[in-house]
């Protein structure tokens, strides 16, 4: 079933790429999507386990973009003002997120958020290390990030 959703999605991508939403192009897209999936899915379990999250991921994109704009303004300010006001540092964020998708999404979002940049995940996947531009108030930052994580988990569970 997950595969089927994936396949539909790929068919849609195809149709978008070719720019024609005719039945023919959707069928063609479905066929090609199927071929690709049949091929990739031979490492199956990995592909399918999170595939149903894809719609949510796409839905989340808008949130993502908003974060992006916000963070840019902040950075722009920092870049354009003549002196630096930053208090940078690397902090470790304990994770509640468990799946790959959750962690990845969180990390990417954090990178997009104002003044933070994901560095790496610990090998046991229980901690995300983050470079931040402003760590005067570490607790506030921590809380902010945890809130983001909560939203990601709820979206991708």
């Amino acid at each position, binding site marked *: 079933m997950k595969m089927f959703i994936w396949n539909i999605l790929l068919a849609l991508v195809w149709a*978008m*790429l*070719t*720019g*024609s939403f005719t039945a023919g192009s959707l069928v063609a897209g479905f066929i090609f999507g199927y071929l690709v999936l049949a091929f990739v899915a031979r*490492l199956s*379990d*990995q592909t399918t*386990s*999170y595939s149903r999250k894809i719609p949510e991921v796409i839905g989340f*994109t808008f949130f*993502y*973009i908003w974060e*992006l*704009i916000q*963070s*840019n303004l902040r*950075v*722009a300010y*920092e*870049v*354009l003002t003549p002196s*630096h006001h*930053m*208090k*940078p*540092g*690397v*902090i*470790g964020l*304990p994770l509640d997120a*468990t*799946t*790959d998708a959750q962690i990845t999404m969180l*990390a*990417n*979002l954090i*990178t*997009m958020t104002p*003044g933070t*940049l*994901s*560095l*790496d*995940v*610990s*090998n*046991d*996947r*229980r*901690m995300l*290390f983050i*470079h931040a*531009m402003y*760590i005067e108030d570490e607790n506030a930052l921590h809380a902010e990030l945890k809130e983001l994580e909560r939203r990601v988990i709820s979206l991708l569970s």
Partner: protein
Amino acid sequence: MNESIAAVILLIGGAFVVIGALGAVRMPDLMLRMHATTKAGILGGGLVAIAGGVFFNESEVMVRALAILAFVVLTGPVAAHMIARAGYFTGAPFWERTLKDDLRSNLDKAGGYLYSAQEQREGKGRPQQQAPRDDGE
């Protein structure tokens, strides 16, 4: 109308790109530069792509524009993460006003292992077992 909208988006996008580039030059260390380039670059590039889609006003082109946007947004953070991580591990120097570095104390460079703080507290000098690589295994 489309043209005007496109023009505005285009100019904003261009401006963001310049800001990113400026950041790349002005910021004092690798991580801080990346804060600038990643965000400004992705947003700038995305906006320019949208401007393109708007200007041509054809579904086909718009889809291309969205595809570019999606791709930039999807890959940008991943790429940033990759460089930041690699840069960190190869010892790119931090700005002297950097306040703290939690990662350093958790890293076993020789063993190629990054501990979580929890793990450290639990007193595992070495990982008992490799954590599962991902949820697929």
